[in-house]
């Protein structure tokens, strides 16, 4: 009897401890998820009720050229960022890792600092550097293309430029993950390899690379998820233009809901994005589980 009472008391205390989180979570997270799915089957405006329309919104998505364009642009942006940023981060991590003491700390700081900046600070600095008339990077662009380019108003330059800005801004995080991974590799392995007379390249191929693969998989999938969600930089630098050449899924969600007042249709786009990202997350989870055995 006393034990049951004790157990009940324990459960009540536990309940009081999890309640604050569970309540906020249910109200501001779970409920919006359910509502998003429900709304995607209606023709509701942003504010106010709508009629149930079944799968109409999803059918409409298939023939919506702007939706197809944004899917393609998301894919293009992923191509431009995910693998390049991983390679660059690995190279920086290897370079930083061989430095020592204060020098290492300084260089690490220089590479990591952009990561803590607000996105609008980042975009303003780059917009200034790439200014068509006075931008400090325009001589460099003239060198490549023969003339100055208004990069964010040019359909060919816009996505690669946003990709460069994004890589610059976020790569410190990946560098850090790689450095942590490098530090986890036992020193003895390198000593043994050195005794066997391995060259630096062989040491990288036989020791560093295989042991670093799990971190690489983590970085690749984290980047994939992150770049699927791109919005801020695009919105601040090019607003999806020119000619929709940088229109992405989340921008579609935003425009349909907040500018065109299509709450239901916007929710359908959001649900697709949601499913895409959840899918990649499951993939990541599986990859990491395999690695931990």
């Amino acid at each position: 009897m006393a034990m049951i009472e004790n157990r009940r008391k324990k459960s009540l205390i536990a309940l009081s401890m999890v309640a604050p989180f569970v309540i906020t979570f249910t109200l501001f997270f779970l409920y919006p998820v359910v509502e998003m799915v429900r709304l995607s089957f209606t023709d509701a405006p942003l504010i106010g009720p709508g009629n149930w329309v079944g799968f109409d919104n999803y059918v409409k998505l298939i023939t919506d050229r702007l939706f197809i364009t944004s899917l393609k642009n998301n894919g293009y942006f992923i191509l431009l960022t995910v693998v390049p940023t991983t390679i660059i981060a690995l190279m920086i991590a290897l370079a930083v890792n061989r430095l020592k003491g204060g020098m290492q700390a300084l260089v690490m700081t220089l590479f990591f600092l952009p990561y803590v900046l607000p996105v609008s600070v980042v975009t303003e600095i780059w917009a200034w550097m790439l200014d068509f008339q006075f931008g400090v990077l325009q001589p460099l662009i003239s060198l490549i293309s023969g003339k100055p380019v208004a990069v964010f108003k040019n359909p060919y330059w816009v996505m690669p430029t946003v990709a460069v800005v994004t890589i610059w801004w976020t790569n410190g995080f990946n560098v850090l993950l790689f450095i942590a991974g490098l530090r986890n590799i036992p020193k003895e392995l390198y000593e043994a390899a050195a005794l066997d007379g391995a060259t630096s390249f062989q040491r990288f191929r036989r020791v560093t690379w295989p042991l670093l693969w799990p971190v690489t998989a983590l970085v690749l999938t984290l980047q994939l998820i992150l770049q699927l969600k791109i919005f801020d930089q695009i919105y601040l630098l090019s607003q999806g233009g020119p000619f929709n050449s940088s229109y992405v899924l989340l921008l579609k969600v935003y425009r349909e809901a907040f500018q065109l007042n299509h709450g239901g249709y916007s929710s359908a786009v959001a649900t697709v994005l949601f499913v895409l990202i959840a899918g990649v997350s499951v993939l990541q989870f599986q990859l990491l589980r395999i690695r931990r055995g």
Partner: protein
Amino acid sequence: MSPARKTENIILTLITLTAAAVWIFPLYWALITSIRSEERVVSNASLLPDEFQLTAYVEAIFNTKIMTWYFNSVGTAVIVTVVVILFSLMCAYAISQIRFPGRRLLYGIVLASFMVPTQALVVTQFILMHKMGLINTWGGIILPQLIVPVVIIVYKQFFDAVPKEMREAAVLDGGGEYTILFKVYLPLNWGITTALAIITFIGVWNAFFWPFLIVTSEDMMTIPVGITQVNDAFGVHYARLMSVALLAAMPVAVAYLVFQKKVTEAVMISSGVKG
């Protein structure tokens, strides 16, 4: 070390330093621009600092609403950080230390929600905030940002690692669960608590998309949203624009430089790669 290895080493170090200098150049350039006069900014593109004046900063501080935006950012970021840490601390402790029904399910939900993109939820979150009458308020900025499942996940892992004897001793001393949490488990985990608090704070401080949606009045804007208004209001005044940008970046940059070790530690721990 052989002379060949030594030369290789020096060359590699030089390459690394050059790359780091190129990497930080945008920030250097913003700084140089911000201490020039507007005329100099567009007439003379010297890469070296050739002028030092704080006019742009004075104008930024007195002629924009940056101080109001600072206040909103500090207020909302502090509240979110404190609440997230407190709620997660309690929730993680219960999941880790108390056997209660539904505990595994709850942790499963927390883990699953970690994978969900909150960006996809902005429309329905906005509608909810509208229903609650919280558009253009601190409450509207704060509430949806209170969900940071990773903090619970990290806390749970750390609580799981606390030796069972600590808890048993505290129970024998007659301590209730709240006493044990705040007198034993929290002090034992101060390190990770500060680390989590700092990355939560930086995350909220830098948040753009949600505050941008929920706030339309200039007086309620946070720093990352507010500074985008300066552009519209003044056209191309790059010295002022850069001084505003640097003022906006200052708190997080300083926080990072001061708590560098904690920040990097927190990033590594929260992504599951312990260094």
